[in-house]
């Protein structure tokens, strides 16, 4: 069995700042991490590997620095890492990205047939959740989004059963393979690499595939040219300045009293509802 996991290196959004003068995002000095949503996908793939001995290949389209993110995946237990990188790919939106990744996955499939492709639910820097579906459509694979659990895999029969979070409940879906799964967050916990894993990652050479390697000739489909999405403007929303109310008092009890007073003056319906509720409670108590 062969599983591919598509990951992206993203700036750690917790540490991103907006330039106070130009309003642009300052990525300088912000550490790059594996998109957190992708780690749930990777962990799920590694768990299948633990159970079945499947081969796990991680794949990323990105600049040469993205190699660090791939190495991290190797340290956690992935067998192979491929960086799909070419100057022509830069500036890609989700459409152009899924085009390139699909081409890379096709190439990978020729080397060793794929049964499953995992992606994260979405990225923290794009938030679109479009790349996984884009890949599935292009490859003609089954698409299983927002998967919360993999219930069963039958490699012989090429079938998989998954649980999918849907509005108002959980769907149990059975599908044939190959399939693309986008993994829901919080469904597992990524493992901690052991020392041998760290050594493997430190020594492993990541493969680099450029556009020739994955047979891309039509440059209007990739990078900025292949991206219909236009960023019209970037701005930091001005925080609304609402003056905080200060409640003063000598003792905590006095402060609490002043606070409740203020609350009930501003929202009389709240006081009414509370009194009504208290009346009901009293009535219930009398009955019992």
């Amino acid at each position, binding site marked *: 069995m062969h599983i591919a996991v598509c990951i992206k290196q993203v700036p750690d959004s917790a540490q991103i700042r907006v330039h106070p003068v130009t309003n642009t995002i300052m990525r300088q000095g912000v550490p790059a991490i594996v998109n957190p949503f992708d780690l749930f996908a990777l962990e799920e793939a590694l768990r299948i590997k633990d159970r079945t001995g499947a081969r796990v290949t991680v794949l990323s389209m990105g600049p040469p620095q993205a190699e660090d993110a791939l190495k991290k995946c190797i340290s956690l237990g992935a067998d192979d890492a491929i960086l799909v990188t070419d100057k022509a790919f830069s500036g890609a939106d989700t459409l152009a990205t899924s085009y390139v990744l699909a081409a890379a996955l096709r190439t990978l499939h020729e080397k060793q047939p794929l049964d499953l492709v995992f992606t994260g639910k979405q990225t923290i820097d794009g938030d679109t959740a479009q790349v996984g579906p884009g890949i599935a459509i292009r490859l003609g694979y089954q698409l299983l989004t927002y998967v919360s659990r993999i219930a069963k895999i039958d490699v012989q029969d090429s079938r998989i059963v998954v649980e999918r979070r849907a509005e108002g409940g959980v769907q149990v879906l059975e599908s044939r393979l190959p399939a693309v799964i986008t993994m829901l967050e919080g469904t597992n916990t990524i493992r901690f690499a*052991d020392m041998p894993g760290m050594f493997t990652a430190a*020594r492993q050479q990541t493969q680099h595939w450029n556009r020739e390697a994955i047979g891309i000739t039509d440059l209007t489909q990739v990078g900025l040219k292949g991206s219909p999405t236009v960023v019209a403007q970037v701005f930091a929303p001005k925080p609304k300045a609402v003056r905080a109310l200060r409640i003063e008092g000598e003792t905590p009890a006095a402060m609490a009293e002043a606070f409740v007073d203020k609350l009930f003056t501003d929202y009389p319906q709240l006081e009414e509802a509370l009194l009504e509720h208290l009346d009901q409670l009293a009535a219930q108590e009398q009955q019992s």
Partner: protein
Amino acid sequence: MEKFDVIVVGAGPSGNAAAYTLAKAGVNVLQLERGESPGTKNVQGAILYAHALEEIIPDFRDSAPLERHVAEQRMWMMDEASVCTGMTHRDARFSTPPYNRYTIIRARFDRWFSAKVKEAGALVICETTVSELLRDAQGRVVGVRTEREHGDILADCVILADGANALLGSRAGLRREIKAEDMALVAKEVLFLPKETIDARFNISGDEGVVIELAGNVTHGMVGTGFLYTNKDSISIGIGCMLGDMKRQTITPYQLLEGLKRHTAVRPLIEGAEMKEYSAHLIPEGGLKALPQLYGDGWLVVGDSAGFVNGIHREGSNLAMTSGRLAAESLVALKAAGKPFDARHLAEYKRRLDDSVIIADLKKYADVPDFLHNKPHILDVYPRLLGNAAHEMFMVDGQSKRAKQQKIYAELKSRRSLLGLLGDAYHFWRAFR
């Protein structure tokens, strides 16, 4: 189990210098760093002294991320929130390449240095904390234990480049625990300002930079100093004091820093800046007398972990790099001669240190920590006196200059007895001679 010739613990300047020199010489070396990437855990002002790095990577200027070269040095004596007396040194020779000192941002610099280490052929593994040293039955250090599963790794020699806390050596009983009296605690901020604003405020252009060393009452009478350095589009500002003093005074480092930032001489320089980063870090400032055992069977200690800091000149990273290089060169020489890395042979490292600028400078200032410790008023009384004297002399108010001199002298005497003055002068001379 994995086995290497040498394991270097830590990827600061000392560890990087050691790993680079070893790898260049073809030694099989593993470097372990607990930070996500080299530099994420490290704090420095930071001034980079070119000389020490030049001896390791002669053409470092072509690729290292340098912010500005230091064109001007200011020294300020500060009193309370309003007085600042100072001196400025600007010398065209410092603005002529090759430059001697640069401001740097450690996170970037360390990442660059680490890339060089990898290029040289060392195996570098980050996000991996060494929890203890592995010892054999005779107590020889034979490797390290990391916090990861299956985490034991063997080596013929372990270089401790683990920084100021020096936890590994203490835990293994290779040294005594560090005393608060020998440690300075520094709080530092990086403040963002556009390059043009920095150039205008500091009267500089191009890649020129300014360094301001701050002393006096901003440390509330504790032994310590502050600094303000210009980077390309940010300012590094920090202040620190001896940990022992801080413990007694129950003042926090960030309170000191806030005070410094509000000082009349500092505030206009950083007005409107946005804080990018806040950090606090220890500096071992005990000097020569606080140096631990520097080598033993299967181990060496370098950089801050060995206490190689010249607090008076704020030199640390250069001594770290030089000691890392000397440690590596000692090992390379022993290996070439087919000698084992036992204590008897590793004494070679100590010999090389003794011949170097590190021990020479630490010897020169060996008495300074004691001097400052016993006479903390030096940093409190004198700046105040100096400030008042300058104020008196510059104030044109109809009093004769002679009367003013008498007033200054009277204040001097009221603060410090004549004998006390003489004593201070003598001790000062002794300590810095």
